[in-house]
């Protein structure tokens, strides 16, 4: 039997507001437990929520970013359940009238192709606190710093058919929210988490299979692995004559498996009803239009522009637009050096290689965009050759030169890397190499003419070495060929 996988994602994005969604407390990550919990966050008797306008603005920006319908009115509901880290005994969320209606996200796949995934809706809600199970003499500690942090829950349609698409979708959401600056997108700190709905069905069957929901997966890699495990589990189950039950499961990255948390029968009845403490959000169309006008260029548009206006390949355009920090870096380098292809090659090649080796993000790159741009200016105007450029880059990486865009010049001067293009000087070096290498010259002379091309490499290497890498390689090649052939 051929099986088809059906995947839908619920992505929770922590919005980067200064204060919480319903109180004035700070949302900073990593503070002392309960140091950012006010009377409102503690749900002290008599306290009331007041909606943070910044959270509304960010949610609307997201909606506009995915070309979604933005309903004029949305409403907060109470989702009732008891948990120690849920101070009010209900979570304020939006069940019936969410702030963002149906929209679309464009995802790009490894082969450079793109696909549209429909978003069912996105709604605002408050995060819960955290239960701390260690170091409390067998008791559980409650940290309410996170309680009330604004979340945007983005619910996709079940439009994805494999794990790669799901990851690409998650990356696209990540790119959009970081481009918009409405979230730091930091998955390790929980700024982006996702619930994955997975089902399988025989290929060709129209109706969906029974789905399992995998809760709280917090990395791109885990999403891929959790789906892979879950798909295999469901197919095996069905093929062995069993039935998939609708349930909530948890992905355990250490064991690389999903485990049942609770079945549908055990599921809570959340008893949603409109929150009487908060007025419906009514959006003035002018307000929405102002936000639309202020939207930055988003990943899909940027990718298209990189291809059409800058002439980059689909692959390069995809990689360079995938996150805002990389795109900004690339565009700055390009603006300084004026050559999109050089900028693209260096950002994706030398720079990204070095960043990967050191496990750094581009925001923390030791070589700034100005520095790299300045370096490429000197490559393009032939002041230095490619080999020297790599040396200059390494020097910058190690902290040589200042951070300005002329730091390349300082390093080039200090190290004497300026390219030698003076024919007389190069000829002198070649003559020295030839006279120092009689055996190699003899071999060259004895070789068949069509083999000589390969053998010239030795002489090029020696000459470049003699110039400490500064000789213009094209000139060295041409002059060497002339001089050696003259000896034959």
């Amino acid at each position, binding site marked *: 039997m051929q099986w088809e996988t059906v995947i839908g994602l619920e992505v929770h994005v922590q919005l980067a507001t200064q204060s919480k969604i319903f109180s004035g407390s700070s949302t900073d990550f990593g503070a002392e437990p309960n140091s950012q919990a006010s*009377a409102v966050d*503690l*749900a*002290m*008797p*008599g*306290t*009331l*929520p*007041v*909606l943070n306008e910044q959270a509304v603005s960010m949610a609307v920006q997201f909606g506009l970013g995915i070309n979604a319908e933005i309903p004029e009115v949305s409403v907060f509901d*109470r989702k*009732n359940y*008891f948990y*120690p880290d849920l*101070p*009010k*005994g*209900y979570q304020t969320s939006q069940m019936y009238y969410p702030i963002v209606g149906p929209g679309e996200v464009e995802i790009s796949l490894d082969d450079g192709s793109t696909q549209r995934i429909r978003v069912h809706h996105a709604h605002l809600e408050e995060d819960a606190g955290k239960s701390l199970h260690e170091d409390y003499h067998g008791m559980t500690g*409650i940290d309410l710093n996170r309680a009330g942090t604004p979340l945007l829950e983005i619910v996709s349609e079940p439009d994805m058919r494999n794990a790669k698409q799901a990851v690409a979708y998650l990356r696209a959401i990540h790119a959009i929210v970081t481009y918009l600056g409405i979230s730091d997108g930091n998955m390790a700190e929980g700024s982006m988490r996702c619930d994955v709905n997975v089902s399988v069905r025989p290929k060709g069957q129209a109706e969906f299979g029974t789905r399992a929901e995998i809760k709280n997966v917090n990395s791109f890699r885990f999403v891929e692995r959790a789906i892979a495990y879950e798909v295999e589990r469901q197919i095996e189950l069905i093929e062995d004559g069993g039935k998939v039950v609708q349930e909530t499961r948890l992905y355990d990255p250490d064991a690389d498996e999903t485990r049942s948390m609770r079945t549908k029968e055990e599921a809570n*009845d959340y*008893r*949603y*009803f409109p929150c*009487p*403490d*908060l*007025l419906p959000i009514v959006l003035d169309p002018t307000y929405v239009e102002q936000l639309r006008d202020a939207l930055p260029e988003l990943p899909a548009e940027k990718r298209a522009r990189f291809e059409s206006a800058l002439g980059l390949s689909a692959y390069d355009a995809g990689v360079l637009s995938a996150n805002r920090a990389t795109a900004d870096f690339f565009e700055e380098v390009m603006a300084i050096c004026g050559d999109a292809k050089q900028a693209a090659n260096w950002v994706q090649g030398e720079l990204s290689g070095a960043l990967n080796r050191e496990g750094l993000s581009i925001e923390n790159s030791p070589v700034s965009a100005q520095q790299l741009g300045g370096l490429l200016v000197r490559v393009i105007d032939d002041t230095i050759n490619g080999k020297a450029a790599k040396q200059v880059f390494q020097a910058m990486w190690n902290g040589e030169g200042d951070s300005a865009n002329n730091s390349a010049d300082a390093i080039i001067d200090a190290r004497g890397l300026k390219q030698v293009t003076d024919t007389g000087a190069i000829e002198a070096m070649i003559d020295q190499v030839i006279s120092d290498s009689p055996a190699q010259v003899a071999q060259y002379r004895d070789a068949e003419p069509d083999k000589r091309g390969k053998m010239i490499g030795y002489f090029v290497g020696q000459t470049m070495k003699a110039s400490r890498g500064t000789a213009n390689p094209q000139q060295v090649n041409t002059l060497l060929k002339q001089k050696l052939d003259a000896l034959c």
Partner: protein
Amino acid sequence: MHDKTLTEIAADLTAGKYSSHELTEHLLKRIERLDPSLNSFISVTGDNARHSAQQADTARAAGTAGQLAGLPIALKDNICTQGTKTSCGSRMLDNFISPYDATIVQHLNAAGTVNLGKTNLDEFAMGSSSESSFYGPVKNPWDLTAVPGGSSGGSAAAVAAGLIPAALGSDTGGSIRQPAAFCGITGLKPTYGRVSRYGIIAYASSFDQVGPMARTAADCALLMNAIAGHDSRDSTSVTRQVPDYSAELDKPLRGLKIGLPKEYFGEGLSAEVESAVREAVRVYESLGASVIDVSLPHTHYAVPTYYVIASAEASANLSRYDGVRFGHRCQSPADLEDLYKRSRGEGFGSEVKRRILIGTHTLSEGFFDAYFTKAQRVRRLIQQDFIDAFKEVDVLMGPTSPTPAFDLGAHMDPVAMYLQDVYTIPCNLAGITAMSVPAGFDGERPIGLQLLGAHFSEAQLLNVAHQFQQATDWHLRRPAFAEETI
């Protein structure tokens, strides 16, 4: 001193007839002597009161005192006051010391009022008799075998007994007006959104409103001037400008159009109450008002509608009392579920549990549309009834309660108790403003006249009530209990 109104006390303090300090000591002594028979206070905050009185006297001497400086008041114990117990009449909050002041308490403190204590109430303001308090029932000073009404029964009894000239109550489904009627005092329920709810322990959020309870409409106006207004911490409070509620009290009523809702004079209304209300209407006619009959056709649905929506909201509002962060926590819980079950089981009384259960049930999957959604629709119809009526008349009048105060322990059946609020609840569903003013007696027990006004018509309602009090003396009567000399 203790039978004076706030307005009279303010004049006396200005004239130097006595100091706020002397008045405070006098009232504290009365509370100490008389309240054991009434049980109207849960906490008496003598030291704080003495301190505030001293400050008010100093300010008065320096000429910097405002109109309310030095005036003694009491607060219903569901209003948060920083550093003192705010119990809501519940074992659940018997150990709760509020870390902050309600917005209205900040306003009153800034105005210089002297807060003598926190008054008793039905647990979490759920009730119509003030019998369900963890601290025991409140007695009616007119007849110690009768209830004072509820849920603001402590505030009403304390004012009627001359323990305090005025107090704040809260009105979710009649909880200011019915006890005001039962105790022969004046009470105002403001329009929903007029007074901040920040710091008022929530029972049913879309209904709760704090308001003044005093001897006269003029005193209610004085307190409204201090507590009404927008609060950025309460999203449901309105930005609409606050008028001077005292300014129009003396406006003549000539030309006033009064509507009598026929549904408020039907089955279940006691003959004595009806005749007192009709007599009061005749007084208004003599003051130049015209009277017509009107209909509020959906009145019949108000009580069930209210109990569906209010209980639903309450079921969520009371979820925070889980034994985790504040309030009652059971001894040595075995696990989390045990902590929840026993803390809540021990902390809440039976009426509160009943409403949590009703609310939880009506919000449950499969019942939500039939109960909650339907009730929301009916609520809009009830609101529309009033909007239509106020196109024809300026105010509506009727009885506050179908009967005068009933005996303690008389209504053991909760539904019979709920039906006591048949005339007060529609106002809360519509969010409009209403008052109860003394309008007669059935034997020893007072009868209240209810005045209902359109949204934000408090100034007019206070004017209408004040004019009645200029023409009658029901509000000046005192129970024999209050006259005991000490």
